[in-house]
């Protein structure tokens, strides 16, 4: 008798992916589904996807989902969570969604200590619209709207939203990870699980920023894209726990 050692998580639907080859979203979707399975919360989880590549997250993650306007996922999630505190509510947002058009919602939800788990996928570009500059784009990085590379006093400096949110009084747990290697994927899953647990323990706002690769818009091979994250992106966005106030909150 063969022992089954790997299977599709129950919280993951059996659908063909629409993501580009080498994209990080599929990995992250799976990690969320695994965490939901392991915590046994599929029947009380509600997700709020962003506008952007991951708007179709509901085609993959098999929980109740409510779509939000661009940037407003955290506000919609706040409405759901406050109404039904017994639910586990997460948002899934890209860098444009949470760090540009939705910055205010993120900062104030963190300030209020909303019991939400935010999955912030940072790939440094607007992916779905074709690779324009994002608030998180690195200095000098070429995008379709920074043809000669990002210049700080023309295009702005890269915005480190996670650091900004760490200052907020109601944020409890913030960690930055990546999904470029098996080791990093395992770390990311642990961080996602912690972010869900912080919410379930009623402690406050939790966020995991995941540096993800966008080979198509970066015009790199999937392998080179992973290397770019590990060698270049982490210089501006260092990996690790940015805030952990779980003890203090208790």
């Amino acid at each position: 008798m063969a022992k089954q050692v790997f299977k599709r998580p129950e919280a993951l639907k059996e659908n063909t992916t629409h993501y580009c080859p080498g994209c990080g979203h599929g990995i992250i979707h799976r990690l969320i589904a695994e965490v939901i399975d392991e915590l046994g919360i599929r029947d009380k989880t509600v997700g709020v996807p962003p506008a952007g590549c991951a708007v179709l997250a509901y085609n993959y993650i098999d929980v109740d989902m409510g779509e939000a306007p661009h940037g407003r996922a955290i506000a919609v999630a706040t409405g759901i969570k406050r109404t039904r505190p017994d639910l586990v509510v997460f948002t899934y947002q890209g860098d444009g969604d949470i760090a540009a058009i939705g910055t205010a919602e993120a900062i104030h939800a963190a300030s209020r200590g909303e019991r939400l788990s935010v999955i912030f996928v940072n790939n440094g570009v607007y992916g779905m619209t074709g690779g324009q500059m994002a608030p998180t784009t690195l200095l000098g990085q070429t995008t379709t709207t920074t043809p000669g590379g990002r210049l700080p006093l023309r295009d702005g400096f890269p915005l480190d939203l996670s650091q900004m949110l760490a200052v907020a009084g109601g944020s409890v747990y913030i960690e930055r990870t990546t999904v470029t290697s098996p080791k990093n994927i395992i770390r990311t899953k642990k961080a996602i699980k912690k972010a869900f647990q912080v919410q379930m323990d009623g402690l406050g706002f939790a966020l995991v920023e995941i540096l993800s690769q966008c080979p198509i818009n970066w015009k790199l091979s999937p392998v080179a894209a992973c290397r770019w994250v590990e060698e270049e992106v982490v210089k501006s966005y260092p990996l690790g726990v940015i805030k952990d106030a779980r003890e203090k909150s208790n």
Partner: protein
Amino acid sequence: MDRRLMCGSHVIGEAATRAGCRFYAGYPITPQNELPEYMSKRFAKMDDAIFIQAESELAAINMVMGASMAGVRAMTSSSSPGISLKQEGISYIAGMELPAVIVNIMRGGPGLGNIAPSQQDYFQATRGGGHGGYRTIVLAPCSGQEMVTLTMKAFDLADAYRTPVLVLGDGLMGQMMEPVTFPDPIDPAATLPQKDWVLDGAGGRDSRLIASLILDPIDMEQHNWKLAGKYKAICESETRHESYLLDDAVLAVVAFGTAARIAKGAVNRVRKAGLKVGLFRPISLWPFPEKELKALSSTIKHLLVFEMNLGQMVEDVKISVGEQATVDFHGRPGGIISTPHEIAGEITKLIYRYDTG
């Protein structure tokens, strides 16, 4: 039953609470600050009600969207510039077929305008307001008591049709104190029908999705036809208006909200002088009481539309009556409150012009 003396914004807050509203999110803006203040105080005494002072109008309407997804009766309120900011959210709420109540206590505009009473948002309210060709039910009270009944009705209509409903007042309606009678509050958990579409966790059922993204144009067209069917049903069943002294009238003033209140004073004044004039007051601005006004124009051949703007509802009046009646307009934009004397003068001029006294 419960009789109290209250300002209009407080009346709306109390009526909403009694209608089973259990979620309110809002942002301060004059002249409606009394409403979020009332909600914060009222909900603080309740175990099952949530008040959030949001960081922005955008956040407030999107919090209401989320609360509605979770199944609770939810409301936000603002005044003209703030309502403009909420329009994106209202479009999504309409597209996702969620119930929600939005209160607009209008002020003078455009832009930041002022904080004086105005009716300059009629177009915005009755044409959907945001992108994508949707409609919202719009109810326009003209007294404290009607703010009770229409606010409560707004929640019923929002649930019945799964659509956003606007309560459209103005600075005068919001600030004015009047005695009002409230019906007994309902217990939403015990009395309201269960919603079988809410997001409450996929336990023992398939997961649910509430979304407005419909990428395939064939499916998007079908969704639009579905909305069109709903809007048709609303037009057939939900028009509301008041007729005042119209039976023998040769001229009718057409006005809504505060303007109708002023017009009623003018009608009473000219009646004393022997002029046969009445008032037709649309209460639902969308759906507009088009058939009722058309029927009226088969006997009353002269209409005077009075609005606290440059002429917005007058377009719906003209569409309704066609060539069956003359349609004149008198308007005061920018937050000016006309007197009954001024409107009586306009009425009298028309009576002489059409030689119909």
